[in-house]
């Protein structure tokens, strides 16, 4: 290491230790506190926390195994309507809050376990898209030139296709299944993260503290990942939160078409798709999975909106 580099590193450390560039933690704390003061953020957060709780403890909350067929176990028929004792259902009959599905399984238990599947889908796909999208977007925005051109043109090609159509095409090639559906959704959403990251990095890299780091002799890797990216994450966090909702919808759509989760996995889109023809004879089998999708998507959308407001420096939060 040269003397100049050593000096630069020492200065950089000194600046960090003295907090001259600002400690990000207080900023996040401020953001969370602002989020908790925004009504949409509060509601969204509560919904997501409840869903996370259900997903984590579905085995304990659900009265039945979601794959357990109740033929011979209870006196129930396929597609039986909900039986809720406090609403007047005969107490001698077993209670099924959301009724019985076409394969004589407890719908409530399946909807609860569906939370786990859907949240996993949302978080997994967004995480994968986020990691690769942010990486490629950051590289592209920071270095520019031919690297930027190649990466962004590739993203443009992917963005050129309608996302769900491209996902269907990818799954059609790879074969139906939850893993391939996750991969397909990650691929089609990746360019959004890359583009937003690039735009954010382009503006942040021109700020004075980045120039200062450069003057101090910090490496590109250090500047990009420890100086620029942390300050460019605000729009990406908002996008990711909203993206979870979109990913859950896309996955439900693929499963509805028979391309995503396969039976007997309790996935809301699959449950909707398998009973779509019974909308008049057994509406509860379409209603409850549909409501579950709606609440989850609403939760993430409200949280995303709240985060956007909480993190937007242009809004006066005082």
């Amino acid at each position, binding site marked *: 290491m040269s003397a100049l580099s050593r000096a630069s590193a020492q200065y950089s450390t000194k600046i960090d230790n003295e907090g001259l560039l600002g400690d990000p933690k207080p900023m996040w704390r401020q953001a969370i506190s602002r989020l908790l003061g925004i009504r949409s953020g509060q509601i969204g957060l509560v919904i997501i926390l409840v869903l996370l709780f259900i997903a984590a403890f579905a085995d304990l909350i659900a009265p039945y195994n979601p794959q357990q067929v109740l*033929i011979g176990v209870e006196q129930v028929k396929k597609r039986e309507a909900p039986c809720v004792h406090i609403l007047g259902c005969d107490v001698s009959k077993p209670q099924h809050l959301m009724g019985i599905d076409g394969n004589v399984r407890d719908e409530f238990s399946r909807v609860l376990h569906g939370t786990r599947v859907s949240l996993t889908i949302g978080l997994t796909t967004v995480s994968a898209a986020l990691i690769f999208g942010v990486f490629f977007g950051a590289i592209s925005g920071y270095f520019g030139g031919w690297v930027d051109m190649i990466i962004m043109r590739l993203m443009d090609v992917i963005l050129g296709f309608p996302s769900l159509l491209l996902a269907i095409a990818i799954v059609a090639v790879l074969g139906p299944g939850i893993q391939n559906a996750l991969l397909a959704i990650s691929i089609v959403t990746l360019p959004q993260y890359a583009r937003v990251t690039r735009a954010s990095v382009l503006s942040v890299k021109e700020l004075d503290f980045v120039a200062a780091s450069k003057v101090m002799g910090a490496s590109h890797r250090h500047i990009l990942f420890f100086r620029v990216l942390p300050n460019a994450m605000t729009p990406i966090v908002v996008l990711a939160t909203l993206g979870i909702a979109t990913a859950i919808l896309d996955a439900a759509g693929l499963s509805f078409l028979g391309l995503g989760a396969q039976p*007997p996995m309790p996935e809301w889109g699959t449950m909707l798709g398998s009973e779509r023809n019974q909308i008049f004879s057994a509406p509860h089998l379409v209603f409850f999975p549909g409501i579950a999708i709606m609440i989850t998507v609403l939760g993430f959308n409200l949280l995303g909106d709240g985060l956007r407001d909480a993190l937007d420096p242009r809004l006066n939060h005082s």
Partner: protein
Amino acid sequence: MKKILLGGLAVPALLVAVSVPASAFEGRTVAAPNCDYGGKIESIVAQDEYTVVFNLCKPDPAFKAKAAFTPFGIEPEEYIDSAGVDGSIISAPIGTGPFMLDAWNRGDSVVYKRFDDYWGEKPVYSTLVYRWNDSGAGRLNELRAGTVDQITNVSPDDYDSVKMDDSLQFIPVVNPNTMYLGMTNTFAPFDDVKVRQAIAMGIDRQRIIDNFYPAGSEVASHFTPCSLPNACVGDDWYGFDPAKAKELLAEAGYPDGFDTKIYYRDVFRGYLPEPSLVAVELQTQLRDNLGINAEVVVMESGEFIDESTSGRLDGFYMLGWGADYPHITNFLDYHFTKGTVQFGNPFPEIYDNLITASTIADTATAEPYYEKANNAIRELVPMVPIAHGASASAALKTLGNAHFPPFGAPQLQFDDPGKDTLVYMQNAEPISLYCADETDGESLAACQPVVETLLNYKIDSGDTVPALATDCSANDEATVWTCTLREGVKFHDGSSFDANDVVASWAAGIDASNPAHKGNTGSFDYYAYLWDGFMNAE
């Protein structure tokens, strides 16, 4: 100069004039050089203007039942020779039926107009419309809204609501059918008979019937429904015995089961009203009873039929069969005779008996052969017969004479909608309207108002009644069938019906060298399988 087809070759009529009477009529013939090709038909000869002779290589007691089947419909000779060659016949049929095609609005409807020169009783309304909807709920919704007059395949869950609806008629369909779980014995582990027997014993078929089939359905004791003669001779199918099944599976080397797939198409049929539910139920039973981990795979309908009947599916597959005509050969011969590869390599223990039995007219004489064949099916388990399903149609209360025959589609010319248009809704759009080369039920139904056959099925049974032929009779050996044709019949294009139209229509299907042997796909499945193959094939 009119040409005559001899062995598929168009020969100037003068060259065969020696066999033609001095009258103006020049009879056509389609013939194989001999019977060595293995098929059942040696020749079809227009003996005179209103007599057609079918010379068979071997007896066929089911000839009349087969000849009444829609794929053997008659179209004008000249039209077959032109439109059959250039392919336009597949969307514009010309027949002698009570309705003529007016328009096929792709993706929406097929519209027919009453044929005023029809030889029989004319319909009381002028316009017939076929529409389609693949959703049971959607079909019933349209019926309740009064936008259609009759629908096919009421969903089992809607039976009670249809029965209780004062504005609707519930029409049970008694078409004999079988739903089975197929296996292809050229793929491991289905190449081991012990595995197949284990599966036969390891599935609780009664549970499937009780929970996923409408009332009136029954567990299959044999492959063929017992309403057909000789169908249920021989031992009944295995009872549900999971312990014995596990034992057999262990003996075969699979004590913990194995991984496989269950293929199916998501199409409503009388033998399988709710395919996705039954697939998951089978998946559950295989897992719980035998430790077999089966992934459920939905396939596109056409691809599924292609792959399964060609013996290319490496797992289980759910398929079924609805009777085309009322004879046991329609079930057993199609699935198990020599040359069929649907279940892998065919078994001589089965097909030797079937081939012998198919040439015997007398039911009692044929019984021992069908008994042996049924017992061999039970022993070798090429598939597991699950159910004989009940199904139903529904119609508006205002539709007079509403019915659904056991064989074929409703004969809607007899109905009275009380208005000038009758709208019939089925599951799907026809693939083509040239039914000589179709097996798809929706296509056959859409051909029926236009194209007629030599004989027809009774509206309430599988017995045949005269149609374009006033009579078809056989010699003592049932090897020569002579059909006397109805006189004074007109085609929709105004041409007159005669024996050459019969020969030309049959020749396009049965004669592989005929220039009109093109059709929609060129497979002419029913000609191939009901008559044991094409003549003059290279």
